[in-house]
């Protein structure tokens, strides 16, 4: 079981991702609604896996990803993004993300990504 931090600016998506993470047998240890909160919560919680939305206010997901990787080069981050942002895949992977899930996604795909991240 992994301790997971869920980051998304949308309350609905945090619920969707948290439900999927729990259904996969993992524990949601915290949530964040923007990139700034994400980095703070990561420092505080040191989760096994972080799911990270890309388009968020305050600080976007790619910037937060780079800061999280700078804090912990071994951080396991699963990026979640909307349709039309597939071009961000390589940018995120180069920055250190482990997996990428495009919304809308099946619950099983997100669970599989979290499972692979903790490998």
């Amino acid at each position, binding site marked *: 079981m992994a301790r997971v931090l869920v980051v998304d600016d949308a309350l609905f998506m945090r619920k969707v991702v948290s439900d999927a993470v729990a259904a996969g047998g993992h524990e949601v240890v915290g949530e964040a609604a923007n990139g700034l909160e994400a980095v703070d919560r990561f420092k505080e919680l040191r989760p096994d896996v972080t799911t990270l939305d890309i388009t968020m206010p305050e600080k976007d997901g790619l910037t937060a990803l780079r800061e999280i990787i700078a804090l912990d080069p071994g951080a396991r981050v699963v990026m979640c993004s*909307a349709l*039309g942002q597939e071009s961000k895949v*390589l940018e995120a*992977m180069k920055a250190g993300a482990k997996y990428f899930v495009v919304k*809308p996604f099946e619950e099983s795909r997100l669970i599989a990504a979290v499972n692979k991240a903790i490998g």
Partner: protein
Amino acid sequence: MSSSYAEAQLHLAQATSRAVADVLTGLGVTVEVGKPALAPRGSNPLEILPMPGVMSKVAYIGGVAGGNVIATSVAGANVIAAAMGAGNDLAATELSDIAQSAFSEAANQMLASASAATAAVLGRGVEVDPPETTVLESIPDVNDVATPHVTRVSLTVAGETCLFVQLVPQSFVMRVSAALEESETFVFDDDDLDGPMLDSGWVHETPLRLDAELGSARLTADEVLGLRDGAVVVLDRAVDDPVELYVNGTPYGAGRLLLDGDEWAVMIEEILPQGDQLESEANETVNDDRVLDSVEESIEVDTEGSG
């Protein structure tokens, strides 16, 4: 406004509204897409929106004015939220927090898809701010003095009115307009427009691109990132398999690779049933490739916000 500017806006509105409708259809919602319309200067493109309503909008970034708006009634937002799986009450006359968030997420996907369609029409990337979603008690004024070009498409979503409004920057209009003027064959499926229409005679002179595909491979992003000089990627074809032929990206037949002197050649072995495919490809070529080529040429004289 010149008719070419009008055609350019409507061309863009048609492509992007289809992208928005595709997202809704993907959610399992019934959607009817109306014809794009230009909003007269000084009018409010949301004036027909039933109240109370909900609106999500994104603004272009990177020094580009304008943006896109999705707006619907509360009833329409509840339909979309339910399709997203919010578990909300369809009969509710207000939006719950979770329903508003679910609608916002759906709007995010629609607006992202619209931005991707815009980028495809322009032939360049388009970046937008994160969307803002607002519950409306009265019709807002979304007009922006920096973007005098406004289009509106009415979508009927499970019987509810949903409006897709584009605040189109002058630079976008100039790019698409210049491209369409360069193409003498642009066809817009709106009888009200006086655009140049298709003359079937020239179609047969239209250059098409034929590609021969040796094979392909599917790699993960990790594997692609790990490729280095000298790496070998095995393709999914044996050396004696036929190569597949594509005309402007559409499957057209198969053949065998030959050497013609120092150059590769293909001996055709099979032509797929095409019907009017070739003529269709010719139309696509003019409506897309030439358009985008001339768009690129027009960039140098494009002045942001000059209109």
